[in-house]
C-alpha cells in the first residue's frame, strides 16, 4: 500500500507549493507571477490547464457514449471512474482558469453578457453546462451512501440517459470549439497547425485522447492500489483507439495535402520537427502498436501506447495554444511559478480523485485507505492520559506537514522583486560616448540625445549661474573656475570629470549608492556603528561622518554629498532629466527675463524649445521642420520625469 501513500505525499507537496504561488498571484497580479506579456498574453495556463485539461477530460463523454449509447455493457467498471475523472478534470480547468483570468471574480459575466460570435463564449457556456451535467451524472454514486436522498438518486438514475446524451452533445461542441478559438489568429499560429478544420481535428483527437486517458487512468489507479489490471478492457479500448487515431491521421494528412502544406512538414525548421514528434508520439506509433490485436493485450503496450497518446495529444494542445506561435511572438517561456500552479491544480484534482476512490463505491471492491484499517493499539494511553493519535491522524499530520513545508519553500523561492511587484528590468547604463558632442544613449535603444558638451562649457565660461534644486543651491561662475563641478558634482578619486553612469548605474531604478549594509557587514567594510556615527545622539545620516572623512580621494562638489551621504541616488533617467531639465525648465519659466539677460545668444523662443522632450530626444527631426513647429509653452506631460523644484539666476 505504500505506493498510494507515497503518491499522496508527493501530491500534497505539489499542492502546498502551488498554494504559495497562488497567494502571490492574487496579491500582486499576473505580471509578477507569470512571464506573460503584451505580445504573448496567453501562455502555459491556457495551453496546458485549459486546452489540454478539457481534452484530457474527454474520457467522460467517450466512455458514457460507449456504455449507454452503444450498450457495450462490459465497460461498466470503467464508467464511474471515467465520469469522476471528467468531472474533476473540468473543475480543475475552471480552477486553472481562475488563475489565468485577470478578473476571475467576473467569470460569471458570461451568463449575463452574451456575445454568441465568440468561440470562447460558446466554450465557456458548454464547460459550465457540461460540468453541471457531469455532477448530476456522478452524484448517484455518493448519494448511494445516504438513504435519505434515495428519491433524488432514483430521479437522477431514471434520467441518466438524457444526461448522458446532453453531455455528449455539449462535449462535441466545446471540444471542437476549443479549436475554433484559434481560427481568428492565422497570423499567430504556424501554418502547420492552422487550418479551417481545426475544430474537427480537435474533436477527433479528443475522442482518441479520451479513450486513452481512461485506459491510462485505469492502469495507474490499479497499479497504485495493487489491483489486477483490467487488461481485457484496456485492450479493447486500445483497439478502438487505433481506428480513431487512424481517422485522425488521415484527416490531418488530407488537410495538409489539400492546402499544400505538406512541404512544411519536412522543411527542417524547428516547427516541422516539433510537428513530426507530435504526430509520431500522439498518433502514428500508438496506432501502429494497437493495430496488432495480439499486442494490445500486453501490459507494456498498453502502458506505453496510452501514455504516448496522452502525452502527444497534450503536446498538440500546448502547440496550438502557444508553442507553435513562438515565431510570431518570440517573447515567452513559462515561469516556474506558472508551472507550479498547473502542477498544483492537477495534484489537488488527483487527491480528490483518490479520496473519492477510497470513500465511495467506484470500484466493485473499495480499496481500503491504508491508514484507516481497524487498529489494534488503543488510541488513548490511559496511564499517561495522552492521546496517541489514530493512524488517520497520522496521515493528516504528515500531509499537513508536507503542505506547510512546501508552502514555505514556495514563499522562500519568490524573489524580492517578484514579491514587491516591481517588474522593472534593471538595465545597466552604458556611458555616453563622444567628446565635444556627447551621444547619450544609456539603454542603447538607438533613441539617443545629442548633447553639445563643448557648447555648455563655453556657456558656463561666460556666465555665472546659481541654481536652486530641491532647496540646495548650486553655483558656478567663470571667475570661480568651477564650472565643471556644476554638472560633475561628484568625482571619483583621481578624476576631474567622472561620467554620470559611474554612479547612476541603473537606467530606471534608484541606486543604492552608499550601501550601508556593505559598510557594516563583516564581509564588507566591517565597520562598527561608532566608527561613523557619533555616540550619544540619534544614529542617522546627519549624525554620521562625511564620506570624504574616509574616502579622501572623492571630490564632492559643494552642496552635494558633503552634507552627508545620500543613501539613494536617482536612476540615470531621473538624474539626466534633473540635470538637463532643471536648467532648461527654468529657462521656460523665466523666458522673458532670460531673453533680456542672455546677451542675445539664444532668444526666448529658442530656449523654450529646449524644454520640449523632442528637442533633445530623437535628434532626427529635420531642421527645416523644426522651424515649423508651433510650440505651445506648456510643460511636457511625462510623469516619470522627476522635475525638481528649481529657481535660477543667471548673471
Amino acid at each position, binding site marked *: 500500500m505504500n505506493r498510494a501513500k507515497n503518491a499522496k505525499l508527493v501530491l500534497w507537496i505539489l499542492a502546498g507549493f502551488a498554494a504559495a504561488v497562488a497567494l502571490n498571484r492574487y*496579491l500582486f*497580479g*499576473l*505580471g509578477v507571477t507569470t512571464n506573460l*506579456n*503584451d*505580445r504573448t498574453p496567453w501562455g502555459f495556463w491556457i495551453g496546458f490547464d485549459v486546452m489540454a485539461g478539457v481534452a484530457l477530460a474527454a474520457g467522460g463523454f467517450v466512455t458514457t*457514449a460507449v456504455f*449507454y*449509447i*452503444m*450498450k457495450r455493457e462490459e465497460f461498466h467498471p470503467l464508467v464511474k471512474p471515467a465520469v469522476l475523472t471528467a468531472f474533476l478534470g473540468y473543475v480543475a480547468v475552471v480552477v486553472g482558469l481562475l488563475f489565468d*483570468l*485577470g*478578473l*476571475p471574480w*467576473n*467569470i460569471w459575466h*458570461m451568463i449575463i*453578457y*452574451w*456575445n*454568441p*460570435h*465568440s*468561440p*470562447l*463564449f460558446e466554450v465557456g457556456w458548454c464547460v459550465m453546462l457540461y460540468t453541471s451535467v457531469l455532477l448530476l451524472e456522478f452524484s448517484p454514486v455518493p448519494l448511494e451512501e445516504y438513504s435519505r436522498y434515495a428519491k433524488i438518486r432514483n430521479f437522477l438514475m431514471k434520467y441518466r440517459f438524457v444526461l448522458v446524451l446532453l453531455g*455528449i*452533445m455539449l462535449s462535441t*461542441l466545446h471540444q*471542437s*470549439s476549443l479549436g*475554433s478559438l484559434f481560427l*481568428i*489568429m*492565422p*497570423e*499567430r499560429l504556424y501554418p502547420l497547425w492552422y487550418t*479551417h478544420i481545426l475544430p474537427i481535428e480537435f474533436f477527433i483527437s479528443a475522442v482518441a485522447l479520451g479513450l486513452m486517458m481512461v485506459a491510462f487512468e485505469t492502469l495507474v489507479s490499479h497499479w497504485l492500489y495493487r489491483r489486477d489490471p483490467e487488461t481485457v478492457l484496456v485492450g479493447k479500448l486500445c483497439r478502438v483507439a487505433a481506428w480513431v487515431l487512424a481517422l485522425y491521421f488521415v484527416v490531418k494528412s488530407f488537410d495538409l495535402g489539400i492546402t499544400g502544406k505538406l512541404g512544411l512538414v519536412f522543411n527542417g525548421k524547428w516547427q516541422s520537427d516539433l510537428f513530426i514528434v507530435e504526430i509520431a508520439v500522439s498518433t502514428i506509433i500508438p496506432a501502429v502498436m494497437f493495430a496488432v490485436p495480439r499486442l494490445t493485450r500486453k501490459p507494456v503496450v498498453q502502458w506505453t501506447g496510452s501514455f504516448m497518446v496522452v502525452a502527444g495529444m497534450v503536446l498538440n494542445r500546448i502547440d496550438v495554444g502557444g508553442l507553435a506561435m513562438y515565431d*510570431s511572438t518570440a*517573447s515567452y517561456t513559462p515561469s516556474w511559478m506558472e508551472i507550479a500552479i498547473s502542477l498544483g491544480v492537477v495534484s489537488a484534482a488527483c487527491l480528490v480523485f483518490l479520496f473519492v476512490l477510497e470513500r465511495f463505491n467506484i470500484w466493485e471492491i473499495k480499496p481500503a485507505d491504508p491508514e484507516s484499517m481497524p487498529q489494534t493499539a488503543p488510541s488513548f494511553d490511559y496511564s499517561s492520559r495522552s492521546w496517541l493519535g489514530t493512524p488517520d491522524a497520522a496521515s493528516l499530520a504528515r500531509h499537513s506537514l508536507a503542505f506547510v513545508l512546501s508552502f514555505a519553500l514556495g514563499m522562500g523561492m519568490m524573489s524580492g522583486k517578484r514579491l514587491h511587484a516591481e*517588474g522593472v*528590468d534593471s538595465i545597466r547604463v552604458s556611458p555616453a560616448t563622444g567628446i565635444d558632442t556627447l551621444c547619450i544613449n544609456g539603454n542603447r535603444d*538607438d533613441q539617443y540625445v545629442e548633447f553639445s558638451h563643448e557648447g555648455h562649457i563655453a556657456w558656463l565660461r561666460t556666465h555665472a549661474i546659481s541654481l536652486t534644486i530641491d532647496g540646495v543651491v548650486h553655483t558656478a561662475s567663470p571667475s570661480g573656475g568651477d564650472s565643471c563641478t556644476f554638472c560633475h558634482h561628484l568625482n571619483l578619486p583621481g578624476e576631474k570629470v567622472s561620467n554620470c553612469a559611474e554612479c547612476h548605474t541603473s537606467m*530606471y531604478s534608484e541606486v543604492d549608492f552608499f550601501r550601508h549594509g556593505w559598510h557594516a557587514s563583516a564581509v564588507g567594510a566591517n565597520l562598527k556603528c561608532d566608527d561613523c556615527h557619533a555616540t550619544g545622539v540619534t544614529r542617522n545620516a546627519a549624525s554620521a561622518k562625511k564620506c570624504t572623512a574616509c574616502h579622501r580621494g572623492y571630490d564632492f562638489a559643494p552642496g552635494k554629498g558633503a552634507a552627508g551621504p545620500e543613501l539613494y541616488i536617482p536612476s540615470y533617467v531621473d538624474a539626466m532629466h534633473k540635470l538637463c531639465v532643471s536648467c532648461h525648465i527654468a529657462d521656460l519659466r523665466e523666458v522673458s527675463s532670460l531673453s533680456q539677460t542672455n546677451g542675445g545668444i539664444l532668444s526666448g523662443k529658442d530656449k523654450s524649445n529646449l524644454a*520640449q522632450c*523632442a528637442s533633445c*530626444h530623437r535628434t*532626427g*527631426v*529635420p531642421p527645416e*521642420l523644426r522651424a*515649423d*513647429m508651433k510650440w505651445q509653452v506648456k510643460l*511636457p*506631460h*511625462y*510623469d*516619470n520625469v522627476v522635475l525638481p523644484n528649481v529657481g535660477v539666476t543667471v548673471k
Partner: protein
Amino acid sequence: MSKAILTDVTKCIGCLKCVSACKEVHHLDADVPRVWDKNDGLSAENWTAIVFKDGRYVRKQCRHCLEPACASVCPVGALHKTSIGAVVYDSSKCLGCRYCMMACPFGIPRYEWDKAVPHVEKCILCYDRIEEGKQPACTEACPTGATIFGERKELLPLVHARIEANPGKYIDKVWGEHEVGGTSVLYLSDIDLGFLTYPTVKGDKPLPQETVTAMESVPFAFVGMGGAMLGLNWIIRRRMKLGEEKAKKKDPAHE
C-alpha cells in the same frame, strides 16, 4: 457618421505631442519600461506611441477596425464598435481572458500586468470628446497636421487627392482602406507600413469571418450529434432485441 484619423507619416516630426496629449486627457500614469512590454512603446499607459522606422516617425495606435477582431472574440462583449467608429472597452464587463489581445491583428491591446485588478488598455478614439463635438486629443495636439481627424468618407478622397498631387512622394496605397476589411485609422506613407501588423496578415478579409463558418455550424453540430447518438442507440437496441428474439425462437425451451 463614421469618424477616422489620418496620419501622414511624411509629415510627422516625432515630437510626441500626440503621446503627451493622450496621456494628459486620459489621465494615464507614469510609463516605466517593464519586463512585459517587449514592444513598440505602446503600453497600458501609452495608448499611442511613435515608432522610429527607416528614418520616419510612425504613430501607432488602435486602428479601430471596421470589423474588429477584438470585439468579435470577446466572450462578454466588453469591446464594441460604436456608431461613430470608435472601438471602445467596458471594463465593468471584462473577465480578463485577454482573447482580444490574442486576436487583434495589429497587436494593439495592452494589459495592466502589474495590477492585482488589471484591465485592458488601448486607444478609444477619444469617443467621449467626439461626442462632445471636439476632436481627439492627439490630432488636436499635432503641430504639423501630420495626424488629422475627420469623416472616414471625406478623408479617403482627400488622401487619394494628396497622393495624386504629389506624384512620387507617397507609396500609392492608403493603409487602412481595405486591410482586414478596412480600419478607421488611415495612413499615408513613403515607407512600407506592413510592419504595423503581423507579417502574415494578408488580404482584405475581415478576421472575424474566419470564425463565422465554425460558429454557424455550432447548432447543427449540437443537434446533429444528438440525433446521431439517438439513432445509433435505437439501431443497437433494436439489433439486440432482434438477436434476443432470434435466440428465443431457436430455443423456446430455454425460457
